């Protein structure tokens, strides 16, 4: 390890050392094992200005490595009261606190435990961190028998432990697939994070995007004119590559469709190529759509903060759809965004009775399954277009790509969109290979950086958590020569790039619609020599022939 490398750099870590995972539990009982905050495995605290902007309580300067976290004097009362409120509001929380039998079926299902071996990253023990406090203060047995029944008193060390381990859960829900009672540790993590926020404890990687999104409409804080510049820039690139000039509809009243996508697609490669793909596709089929600057974020870091914050950010989508007078809404490729849109949006901010049931203007397909929410996924939309032969595709243009598909956690385990992206991919590229069955579909592994953990500060945990996915990618890389990992998630496109660079170097990450747009034969297109990355379309041979 070179002297000047830091724990937030990829090069700081070596495959061989991370692969030496020690699964033996510590000698001390978990309640007696102190939490060691180590750089690379936690995220810095939220800046007061971000907390204040959204009116969260107890904003202050503090750092996870500080001895004194400057908690409000009545912190204990706040937490216990917070637990009580949530027990009364959520049956899920109450039931999950009570019925775990510690069978351990979930234990080796979590990517952080698999890649790190820390027993507190077993979903069951992660939940016990909170459950032990619940037992102590809310159950008769706990009050009478204490440790004998797994109860322990709330101390500052418990708060620190919560902070460490509930920000080592990506709310991916893989554990919940295997639990005989469906106990969803993600739900428990969400409760724990809400409790921490009551004490002003949050991480900046989440709270800055939250505050930005509240103010500017997107996590990255792109202001309206900036977004316009960005999209116009994309249009220029599209024209350069395809010879086709595409429109950039923004805040357009009366458009048929409002299109909302994660802002990550606007800023960082390779997401940007997917964004260009959307624009090229919509132009080609003549969709009457609009982007919005006010609702310029499909993702929702509020989901990683609190139910109320999720609702506050999500409200913009329906509000904007109403203001612009669109008929229905389409969402881009994002993971957690679809958890919110599929399971929360209608409940929180609906009913969307001012919208119409989505109907594809090209095929006439009525998307009945989105009859109430009025929002469909672009993969559903594109799959329908392809099925009806509405797209002219030349999949050979993607021949230099040997593609595998990463199911993002939320579209698979909180929605079940498994076939649509596969159908699209198989129609736009000819070399498609699945990763091993235990690592895809509902059993898919997280990228290791979801739920607001995808920052370099957290590099060690991201690489450890990324091990199962990285390992599966490596497998198809060696077996089938896979060089492209497609994912319909903006966080994935950022985090899996790192995971692949580390665990399966040589595999690049792409969105689905980027591949669609590559294969899309556009009316009036020029000689398509370059793809949207401005690389030779057909790979090396093509460039040289």
């Amino acid at each position, binding site marked *: 390890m070179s002297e000047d490398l830091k724990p937030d750099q990829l090069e700081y870590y070596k495959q061989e050392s991370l692969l030496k*995972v020690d699964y033996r*539990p510590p000698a001390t009982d978990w309640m007696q094992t102190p939490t060691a905050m180590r750089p690379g495995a936690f995220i810095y605290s939220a800046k007061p200005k971000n907390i204040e902007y959204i*009116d969260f309580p107890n904003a202050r300067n503090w750092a996870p490595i500080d001895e004194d976290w400057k908690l409000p004097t009545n912190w204990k009362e706040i937490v216990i009261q917070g637990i009580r409120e949530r027990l009364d*509001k*959520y*049956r*899920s929380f109450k*039931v*999950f606190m*009570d*019925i*775990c039998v*510690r069978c*351990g*079926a979930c*234990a080796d299902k979590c990517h952080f435990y*698999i890649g790190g071996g820390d027993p507190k990253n*077993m979903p069951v023990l992660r939940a016990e961190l909170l459950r032990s406090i619940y037992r102590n203060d809310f159950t008769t*047995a706990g009050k009478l028998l204490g440790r004998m*029944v*797994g109860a322990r008193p709330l101390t500052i060390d418990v708060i620190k432990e919560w902070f460490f381990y509930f920000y080592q859960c990506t709310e991916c*829900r893989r554990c*919940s697939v295997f*639990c*005989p*009672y*469906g*106990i969803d540790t993600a*739900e428990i993590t969400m409760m724990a994070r809400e409790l921490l926020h009551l004490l002003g404890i949050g991480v900046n990687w989440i709270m800055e995007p939250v505050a930005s999104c*509240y*103010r*500017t409409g997107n996590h990255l804080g792109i202001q*309206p*004119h900036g977004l*316009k510049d960005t999209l116009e820039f994309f249009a220029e690139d599209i024209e350069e590559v395809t010879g086709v000039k595409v429109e950039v509809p*923004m*805040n357009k009243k009366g458009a048929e469709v409002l299109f909302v996508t994660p802002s990550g697609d606007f800023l960082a490669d390779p997401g940007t190529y997917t964004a260009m793909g959307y624009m090229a596709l919509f132009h080609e089929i003549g969709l009457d759509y609009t982007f919005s*600057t006010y609702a310029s974020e499909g993702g929702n870091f509020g989901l990683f903060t609190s139910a109320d914050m999720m609702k506050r950010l999500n*409200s913009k989508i329906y509000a904007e759809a109403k203001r612009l007078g669109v008929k229905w809404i389409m969402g881009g490729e994002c993971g957690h965004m679809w958890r919110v*849109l599929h*399971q929360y949006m*209608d*409940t929180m901010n609906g009913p969307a009775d001012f919208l119409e049931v989505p109907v594809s203007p090209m095929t006439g*397909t009525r*998307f009945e*399954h989105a*009859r*109430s*929410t009025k*929002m469909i996924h672009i993969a559903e939309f594109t799959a329908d277009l392809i*099925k009806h032969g509405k797209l002219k595709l030349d999949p050979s243009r993607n021949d230099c790509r040997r593609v595998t598909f990463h199911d993002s956690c939320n579209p698979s*385990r909180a*929605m*079940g969109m*498994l076939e649509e992206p596969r*159908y699209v991919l198989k129609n736009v590229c000819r070399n498609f290979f699945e990763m091993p069955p*235990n690592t895809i579909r*509902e*059993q898919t592994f997280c990228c290791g950086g979801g739920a607001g953990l995808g920052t370099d500060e957290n590099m060690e945990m991201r690489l450890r958590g990324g091990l199962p996915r990285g*390992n599966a990618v490596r497998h198809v890389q060696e077996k089938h020569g896979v060089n492209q990992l497609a994912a319909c998630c903006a966080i994935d496109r950022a985090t899996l790039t790192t995971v692949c660079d580390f665990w399966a170097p040589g595999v690049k990450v792409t969105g689905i619609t980027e591949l669609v747009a590559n294969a899309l034969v556009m009316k009036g297109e020029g000689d398509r020599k370059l793809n949207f990355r401005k690389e030779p379309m057909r790979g090396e041979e093509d460039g040289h022939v």
Partner: protein
Amino acid sequence: MGILVSFLAVVALFLSVLVGIDSLGLRWLFGVAVPYAAAALFLGGFLVRVLGWARSPVPFAIPTTCGQQKSLPWIKSASIENPSTTLGVIARMALEVFAFRSLFRNTKTELRDGRLSYASNKWLWAAGLAFHYSFLVILLRHLRFFMEPIPGFVLALTTVDGFLQLGLPVVLTTSLIFVGAVTFLLVRRVASPQLRYISLPTDYFPLFLLLAIGASGLWLRHVTKIDVPAAKAMVMGLLQLSPKPAESLGTLFYAHLFFVSTLLVYFPFSKLMHMAGVFLSPTRNLAANTREVRHVNPWNHPVALHTYDEYEEEFRERMRDAGLPLEKES
């Protein structure tokens, strides 16, 4: 440590019966008062717990989807693993409750030479299923003590059970499966360092208690050959609220009864409530048709919003300069 405490607790239960019956002759206490109190605590406690859960609403529909959603008509959806209808939910719950569907998925993750493998691992599923079903059969068999005349299916059950007698003339197969499965669950918990690490005394205690119940039951039936009519008379007496603790029944019978009473009392205050909780788990018992049908949150309270007008107010100049449409010109 937890395991020892739990074991000793069960031993203490046994010793208290020994002393209570043999030395002090507290037949009324162990044969009447305790069973009545246990039954009352069980029923009351069970009800309080379930009603407690039911009192909290289900604000969001959060099913864990384990298969293809229902979307486009030409894509086959997983109507049970990702149910979009009530029938699908019922099927999903039935599979969960009767066949332990989720546990059936269990895999064992192993990291060897830098490679991860996920081998299918059905032991826990098999043992869990064996334990629960054999326990159920044993409970049903016990109906012979609770009903007069003995229902036909109880007799039939006992006969079928007897058919599979592994050469031992009297041992009923389910009893062996029961003891075997509980032993497996106990050994598994102790043998795996990871599982031992997460186990609480309250995880060992019910296993020891069940073993004690099973062992005392087997002993009564096959070794000491309990006076069945006397036992039945006593049980019927309890049921008809004219309790008469039998003098002729030995200490072991009272021990068996005491173990069962303890289990009844323990049940509602422990993880054993998973039996009822599984029905109320929102990741399993809701339809995943959340875009098709709106789920209503009873406490959906208003929250502070950043409205479009406020947004335009802040960015109007820049929006105008960029040529973006505005609601208000100034």
